[in-house]
């Protein structure tokens, strides 16, 4: 294994900006286009100079060791970092060609189109029904029949309906970890988002529940664009079409760390034929 390169951030070799088209089938429409994105938490530069594109109806996996900025990048895509005091973004993020951080853009409107599933299942302390109906309700849906229909359809799509159809009025917190995560997925897709962001959606789950979530992701791909952060490389190979490898760069002696995008390409290429030595070390399990 090569020692981590001690070069300072500004001297970074520029990573591949777009996925290589030869790697898979024809690319879908560009959903996200990030150009030279850097993100700070107050004085801490969490991510430096990330450029990548995300394509429609694909699953894009972000992999890399802890602290490499995967989650930070993911949370930048639906402006969830806005909620963190001191968070700041530089560079350009375009969503379907629109500047996501433009002056007129409402973070609330962004999040209605770009949903998120979190690492730790976070059902609201409400009934299962109210959890799923929450999003449609805040979007103004009041019709009971319509809500019933949305709740059933979303729970079915999240492969949870059969397990909960007889207890829709019990607390969402009464579910097991895997069920709770599927409830959160149902809650997210109930608002018919365009994109679903997933932050290590299966890291708190056992292998069977993980399998269920992965099946679900493949299933949802036909309708949604999914960006998923994962620590699990097998999971990335199993579900994703494209993979971005992030890496923690330590700057000189100052002990400042920042996350960078090292390599981005089709999942097959990243895992079979990585071009960067750090990617190779990571995907073959010699690092991280």
């Amino acid at each position: 294994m090569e020692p981590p390169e001690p070069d300072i951030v500004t001297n970074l070799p520029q990573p591949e900006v777009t996925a290589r088209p030869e790697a898979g089938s024809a690319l879908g429409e560009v959903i996200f286009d990030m150009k030279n994105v850097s993100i700070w938490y107050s004085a801490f530069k969490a991510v430096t100079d990330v450029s990548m594109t995300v394509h429609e109806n694909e699953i894009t996996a972000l992999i890399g060791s802890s602290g490499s900025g995967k989650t930070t990048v993911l949370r930048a895509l639906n402006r969830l970092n806005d909620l963190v005091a001191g968070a700041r973004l530089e560079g350009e993020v375009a969503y379907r060609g629109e500047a996501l951080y433009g002056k007129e853009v409402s973070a609330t409107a962004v999040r209605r189109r770009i949903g998120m599933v979190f690492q730790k299942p976070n059902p609201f302390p409400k009934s299962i029904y109210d959890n799923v109906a929450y999003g449609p309700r805040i979007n103004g849906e009041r019709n009971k029949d319509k809500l019933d229909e949305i709740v059933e359809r979303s729970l079915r799509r999240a492969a949870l309906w059969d397990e909960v159809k007889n207890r829709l009025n019990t607390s969402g917190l009464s579910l097991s970890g895997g069920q709770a995560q599927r409830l959160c997925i149902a809650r997210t897709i109930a608002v018919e988002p365009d994109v679903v962001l997933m932050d290590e959606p299966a890291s708190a789950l056992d292998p069977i529940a993980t399998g269920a979530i992965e099946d679900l992701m493949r299933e949802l791909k036909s309708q949604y664009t999914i960006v998923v952060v994962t620590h699990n490389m097998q999971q990335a190979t199993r579900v994703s079409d494209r993979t971005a490898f992030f890496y923690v760069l330590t700057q000189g002696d100052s002990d400042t760390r920042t996350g960078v995008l090292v390599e981005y390409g089709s999942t097959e290429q990243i895992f079979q034929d990585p071009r960067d030595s750090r990617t190779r070390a990571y995907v073959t399990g010699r690092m991280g």
Partner: protein
Amino acid sequence: MAPAPAPQQKVDLREPRSWRRSKNRIVTTLMVLSFVLVIIPLGFVLFTVIVKGAPVISASFLTSSIPPNVLPANIGGIGPAILGTIEITALATVLAVPLGILGAIYLNEYGGNRPVARLIGFFADVMTGVPSIVMGLFIFSIWVLHFGFSGLAGAFALGCLMLPIVIRSTDEMLKLVPNSLREGSYALGATKARVTVTVVLPAALGGIVSGALLAVARAAGETAPLLFTILTVTTANPNVFSGANTSLPSQIFVNASSPYVGAQGRGWGAALTLIVIAFILMIAARLVTARFARFAR
């Protein structure tokens, strides 16, 4: 034939006699002793109030008007004081609880680390430490001197006392709501107001209500803020907004400093009544917490 198994070696699983064990015993004993020490005065107070107050209490005692101090304890009652306490405390609750809850929501959900929010939080803490008689004098000088004694003035004073308690307890409850719930709601496109009303408040409601009820119980038992604001008269005054009024704690104060045995007896009865009211509020707080915990597990 299988060979006889070798005899198993004996293991000693008992706690070794050591300094560690002695330390454990000493500290446990100290804890039990401190608990008993705390319980003794409390038990003594309760015992005395029940022994002296219970014989006086009857249905007519709770409803009759307050007689002249010279009359024996079995004559008359404390009806006006109970009425006054209920009126004044209820009005103080209406004034202070919504304001306190809204203030805490501002501090926790909206204020963030803004200087103005930190200043308000700081002053709420300072207000918690202000002696209750100071609240009474404050209302006396800004209200009573201009508009006279009234239940309303008493409610202002009790409200000032309750406000920081409600702010602090609500603030603590809101802090307990996990941020992941807020983010889950934001990620569905909810606005801040929506997140607060539909996720944060319901999740914290049990704690907020029980905190508010504890503040009410505390205010119901306060004497000092009422001494300069309601005057403590012997006649019932159903109009909480004007005219001098009376209350259980200030009536107890007046009766206890009276030289007449009858008045003192009625004072004990009033004390027991007040304890029972506070007790009921505490139980209500517990029930409310349990009720709202329905979806919390």
